[in-house]
Structures are given as structure tokens and as C-alpha cells.
């Protein structure tokens, strides 16, 4: 088992991104939270670290720029992409979860292109993300899956893709779409044959500016406010059939998207761990300098034991996300473990930030207090990429073979 130790590459990533989080992300986190704005300059800087918008499609290990064809260059040997992903995600979210999502938001769209796209589609995806957009910002991508009436139950997608000659005509509304307003390219999920149900669902690459693609209202959110979330509308939007992911090849339809979500859950859990660790570290520093009625705070069990419990929770959550990632890197079925890691990480992030606020008391009611922000950020980790209830459903189904209701 090598999940308990970082190899030199993982340690290097942790060190580099940890420094990036502390020195570059943390100082601007409050500003972007309060302004609900994307950190475009920082996102451009992050590209310099190898966090490109197309890294997933390129099949490279993010941050190292090397092909992820297995350790020692042997494709059959364990890979390290998933472990790199969780280590990097924890560090970036330690700085700010919203900024972490802003930097990595395009990866949500890139993932199905990498998994299902043809070489031509991958090239088109790269082309659409090349250079800066008309605002001078780096180009980003959006994954358009969720709909107003389709949150947890993605099999109920109502956006349609009607065949029309060499094109498909998309109609429908998407909701809670990361980068929904600003994206230069969208990966849109729509049903090509409603009578076939979920088997008819396909993904389409749609360029910004395509007639009928209408970016909608930007949402005001509880947390992760540096990451843009918006509605996207499709009104008779014509997309060439060549832009249907896996065109001409067999596809599992919606099953492909579910596999994709399985693959990202350890990273999402790791981000939650990063938030919890941020609150924990803040509290440790605060306690070390404080006294209560003449006694150092660290000598009060009320305070010190709370921190001890937080440390237990964080260590357990981190071990779970690394085990789920390690299983992915070793080509083992990690569906159950990925759900466990994601659900537990979300619980720990909420629990640690809430307890930290109570201990800090009035001082954490100051506007812009980082722990209050982390408390708001933490909540989304129990909602997106499959709610806590969906994760428990997956875990329970893996135990009993049926879906509990």
C-alpha cells in the first residue's frame, strides 16, 4: 500500500501547490468571494504551473507535463493521475475552494471529451480553448448536464437533440453550470431519442457563439463564489453531427457520464478535506496565541479536544480520498470507495468549519472572516457531483444490490 506516503512527485506537487495556495490564492480569496468574481489573472498564472484547460484531454499528468501512460512508461503499471489529482485538489482548496473550482472548472467538460471524444473532437476542443477570449481572459469550458428539473436524477434530462440532416438541433435549459456565462466551449448533454430514455443521451461539443446557445443568468450563491455558476439555454441550436461525442462509435449514453462522475469524486472529496484543513490550521494558530481566564487556550480541554477531534476527522477523510484515488490508479473498481470518500469529506468539511466558528465566537462574525467563508464554501461539497444522499445510495446499492428508497 503506497497511499500512506507521498512519492517524490506527489510531495513535489503538494509543496508547489501548497505554496501557490498560501502565497497567491489566499490573499485574493476574500475579494473574489465578496465580489463574486472569477480570478482571471490567477487562472492565467495557474496555466504556467501546468494547470491548463486542456490537460485532461491531452492525457498528460497535470502539473508534470508528462504522459500518464503508467509508472515506468508501462501502460499496464499503475498510473498516478488520480493521486496527483487528490493531492493537488486538497492544496488548491486549502487556499480557496471557489478559486480551486475556477482553475479546474474546465476539467469537468474536458473529462468526457477525453473519455469519449474522437481525435478530431479532441483537436476541436483544444482549438476552441486556444488563446484568450474577447475579454482578454483565458478561455474556459463548461459541462452542461444539470437541468432545472434534473439535479440528482440525471436520467430525467429533458434537453433534446433532434436529428436534422447532418446536424442535431438542441433545445432545453441547463442549470448550475460551472463557467456557464464565460465558457468558450460547452459540452452539452441532450437526449437524441427520448423514447430510448437514458440510452439516448449523448454529449455534444458546442462552441460559444453558435446560434441558439444563450448563456443565462449568473447565480448568487452561498459559497464558492469565485467560481461562476450560471444557467445556459439552447433554442434551436444547430450542432454538426461530428460534434457528438463518440460519433460513429458505440456509447453507453448516460452510463458514460456516470462513470465520469465516479472518476471525479475522490478529487471533490479532497477539496473538502482542503477546506477542513484550512479551518483547522487557522484555529490551531489562533489557539496557540490565546488565553482564557489566564490559562492558555490549548490547556483547556474544551478547545484542545475539539481540535484533536477535527484532526482525527481530517486524517480519516484524507486517507479515504487517497485510497479511492489509489484504487483508480491501480485500475481497481473504486465506485464504492469514491462515494465514501466524497460523502465523508463533505461531512468533515461542514463539521470542522461549523465547530471552528463556534469556538471563535464573535470574532468570526467580522465581515470577510476566512472561517465563515470556508463554512459557506463547505456546503456545496454535500450537494454537487452527487449529493450526500446519492453517495449513500451508491454505497448502499454496492452492499445490498438494490436501490433503497
Amino acid at each position, binding site marked *: 500500500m503506497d497511499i500512506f506516503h507521498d512519492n517524490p512527485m506527489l510531495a513535489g506537487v503538494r509543496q508547489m501547490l501548497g505554496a501557490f495556495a498560501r502565497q497567491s490564492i489566499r490573499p485574493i480569496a476574500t475579494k473574489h468571494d465578496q465580489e463574486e468574481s472569477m480570478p482571471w489573472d490567477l487562472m492565467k498564472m495557474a496555466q504556467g504551473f501546468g494547470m491548463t484547460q486542456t490537460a485532461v484531454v491531452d492525457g498528460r499528468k497535470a502539473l508534470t507535463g508528462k504522459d500518464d501512460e503508467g509508472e515506468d512508461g508501462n501502460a499496464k503499471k499503475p498510473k498516478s493521475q488520480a493521486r496527483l489529482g487528490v493531492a493537488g485538489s486538497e492544496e488548491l482548496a486549502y487556499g480557496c475552494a471557489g478559486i480551486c473550482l475556477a482553475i479546474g472548472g474546465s476539467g469537468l467538460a474536458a473529462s468526457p471529451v477525453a473519455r469519449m471524444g474522437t481525435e478530431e473532437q479532441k483537436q476541436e476542443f483544444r482549438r476552441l480553448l486556444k488563446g484568450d477570449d474577447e475579454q482578454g481572459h483565458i478561455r474556459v469550458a463548461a459541462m452542461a448536464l444539470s437541468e432545472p428539473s434534473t439535479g440528482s436524477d440525471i436520467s430525467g434530462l429533458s434537453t433534446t437533440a433532434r436529428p436534422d440532416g447532418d446536424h442535431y438541433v438542441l433545445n432545453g435549459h441547463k442549470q*448550475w453550470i460551472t463557467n456557464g456565462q464565460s465558457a468558450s466551449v460547452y459540452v452539452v448533454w441532450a437526449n437524441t431519442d427520448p423514447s430510448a430514455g437514458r440510452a439516448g443521451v449523448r454529449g455534444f461539443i458546442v462552441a460559444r457563439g453558435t446560434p441558439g446557445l444563450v448563456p443565462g443568468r449568473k447565480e448568487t450563491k*452561498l459559497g464558492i463564489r469565485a467560481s461562476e455558476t450560471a444557467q445556459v439555454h439552447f433554442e434551436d441550436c444547430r450542432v454538426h453531427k461530428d460534434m457528438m461525442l463518440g460519433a460513429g462509435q458505440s456509447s453507453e449514453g448516460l452510463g458514460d457520464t456516470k462513470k465520469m462522475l465516479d472518476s471525479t469524486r475522490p478529487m471533490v472529496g479532497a477539496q473538502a478535506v482542503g477546506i477542513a484543513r484550512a479551518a483547522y490550521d487557522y484555529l490551531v494558530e489562533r489557539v496557540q496565541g490565546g488565553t482564557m481566564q489566564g490559562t492558555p487556550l490549548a490547556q*483547556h480541554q*474544551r478547545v484542545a479536544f475539539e481540535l484533536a477531534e477535527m484532526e482525527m476527522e481530517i486524517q480519516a477523510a484524507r486517507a479515504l480520498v487517497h485510497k479511492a484515488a489509489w484504487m483508480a490508479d491501480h485500475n481497481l473498481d473504486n465506485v464504492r470507495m469514491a462515494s465514501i470518500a466524497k460523502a465523508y469529506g463533505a461531512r468533515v468539511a461542514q463539521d470542522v468549519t461549523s465547530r471552528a466558528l463556534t469556538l471563535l465566537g464573535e470574532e468570526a462574525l467580522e465581515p470577510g472572516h476566512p472561517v*465563515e467563508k470556508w463554512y459557506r464554501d463547505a456546503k456545496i461539497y454535500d450537494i454537487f457531483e452527487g449529493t450526500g444522499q446519492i453517495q449513500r445510495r451508491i454505497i448502499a446499492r454496492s452492499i445490498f444490490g438494490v436501490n433503497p428508497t
Partner: protein
Amino acid sequence: MDFALDEEQTLIAQTVRRFVDKDVRAWAADADRAGAAPPRLHAVAGDLGFFLDAVPEAAGGLLDGAYSHTRRALRGYELGRGCAGMAALLETNVEPALAVSRWGSAEAQRALFESLAGGGLAVTARDARGALDVVREGEALRVSGKVGPLPGLGTATHVLLAARTGEEHVLALVPTSAGRREAVTPSAWRAGAWGTLTLESAAVPASMVLARGATAVDAITEVLTWWKASMAARAAGVATAAMEHARKYAEERVQFGQPIGRFESLIRLRDDADTGAAAVRLMAFHAAWLADRVRDATSRAAAHDAASRARVLAGDVVDRATIDAVQILGGYGFVNDYPVEKLMRDARPFAQLLGDERFDRILAVRAAQGA
């Protein structure tokens, strides 16, 4: 034992509920976005008796006879169902007015009551961690340090301050003109006119020192009892409101072929929250009932213990209930189109204002043990 409300209590609860359902809930989202209560709040709530209900009639207020904390808890629960930020403003004058009536000099009474009768606000502050530097100068005090952030302090004219000098507890009335006041807008209770007050060696004359030593300990205990019972009642209201919104959504939202409110996991979330809110509500009412019957040291301690326990549970329950309400609404719960994300933000001050209640309880036990 009789849990039924009398005629007057029923009337108060019904009147405030109508005010909350008709006005406060309608104003809440805009007030939250604006970071300020609507200007007409003062007039509408004033007509219902808020702001001056604890000020004696003789001083221009509405209080004739003994104040009823039980009635206050009843209305606090209803206000919590509406908006915690506006509720904080509507309740903020009670502790300063009652404390100054009871322990204040004629000069302190005149200063505070004239201000409140003129539409002013007063807040209660407690230096839980000894962050203020309070020095005794004869019968007067000199205070340095930062008070708050506290709701109401952004516009308040006076602060009822519970603190310690090196040797003793003190309860004093400090005019905000004695320091530098700054309005702030945190994430929670954004309609609450928050502020901080920075005092730099501010002189508090003897006439404004309400109590010191053993008398101050008793006075502060009573003030905190009133405050904690009211806060617990309001927290129960917030938790109840969160589940009202969640229940309505869960009945309408269909996923996997059925309303999500039929899934056992969500039924449990709602049921646990409702159970917690019901328990806190009863504990708050009981604490307020005891506060109305304080006659001696024993009854004072019993009332404070009940209020403190209510506040401990209230902080936990409102936190959990609002987090779970957001969870039930899912993606809709995380955006501000629906009221629950505001309620989740609004839950936090119940456990954070005036200090960590669990820590207080532990320190009190250790003090009793002579530790």
C-alpha cells in the same frame, strides 16, 4: 403543569405571526441583499409595541408593571420564523432598558430612555474573553478596546456592557459617542445594522456604572438569562422556518419518479430538525417562564441554567436544521432564489454572539469546584 397559552399570550403570538407572515418574510430577501432593514420596519414594528416595550411608561415607554419574558419568547419564536436580522433589531432594546430600569441611576435612566423614546437603539455586549481593558478609577471606569461586531451597534446610541476590571465584574451603560463606531455587514443577519465600537481610554462616569462586584455578578446573570432565553426562542423560529421551506419544496420536487419528501433519508432530516426545534422552543419558553419568577439567588441560578442550556441546544439545532434545509433543496438551496441559504448564514450568530455557551458552562463548573 399547564402548557396552554392564556388569552393575552395567544393574542401576542398571533399578532406577531401575522406581522411576520405579511411583512417580515416579504421584506427579508431584499433586506438581506441590501444589508439593511427596510426604513418602514421601525414604524410598523413600533405600532406593534416593539422597541419601547421594556421602557417604563413614565419614561415614555410602554411597560406598565413587570416585564414578561414569556411573552417575549413567544414573539421571539415568531420573529425567528421571519428574519433573524430584523428580529435582532426589534429585540435589542430590551436588555438595556430592563437593566437600566432596575440598576441604573436617574442619570443613566434619563440618558437611555430619552434616546430610546426618540427612536434610538441600544445593544448588549459582553466581554467574554477579557479582550477589553477596563480600569476602575474611583467609582468610575475607563475602557479601552473593541466592542463587537454586534447587531444594532451600527446605529445604537448606548451599549449595556458586561465586563471585568482586574478585580471585579461590572455592568455599565456606555454611550457610543464615547468611542469610534463603525458600521459593518457580515454574512449573517444582514438586516441587523451591525457595527463595532472602538473605545480608547473612554471615561464611563460613576453614574453610568449600574453595578459592580457581587451585585454586578447577579445583574449580569439576569441580563444574560433574558438574552439567552430570547435568542433560543428566535433560533427555534429560524430552525422551524428552514423546515417549513424544505417541506414545501420536498413535496413539489420530483426525482427518481417521486416527490423527494417521500425518501426516508429526507423524512429523517426533516423530522430530526422539527424534533430539535420543538425541544428548543419548549426549553426557551421554560427559561423565560423561570426568568419571570426570579426572586432570589436560587431562582436566579435556575433561570440562568435553563436559559444557558436552551442556548446550547439552540445553537446546535439551528445550525443542523438550516444546513439540512439547504441539503434538501440541493442546488436550489445553494443559490439565493430560495430563502434557505440565508437561513443557513443566519444560524451562526446564535452560537457565536457573546461567546461560546459550552465553554461558559464548563468554566462555571470549574469555578464552582474551586479550580
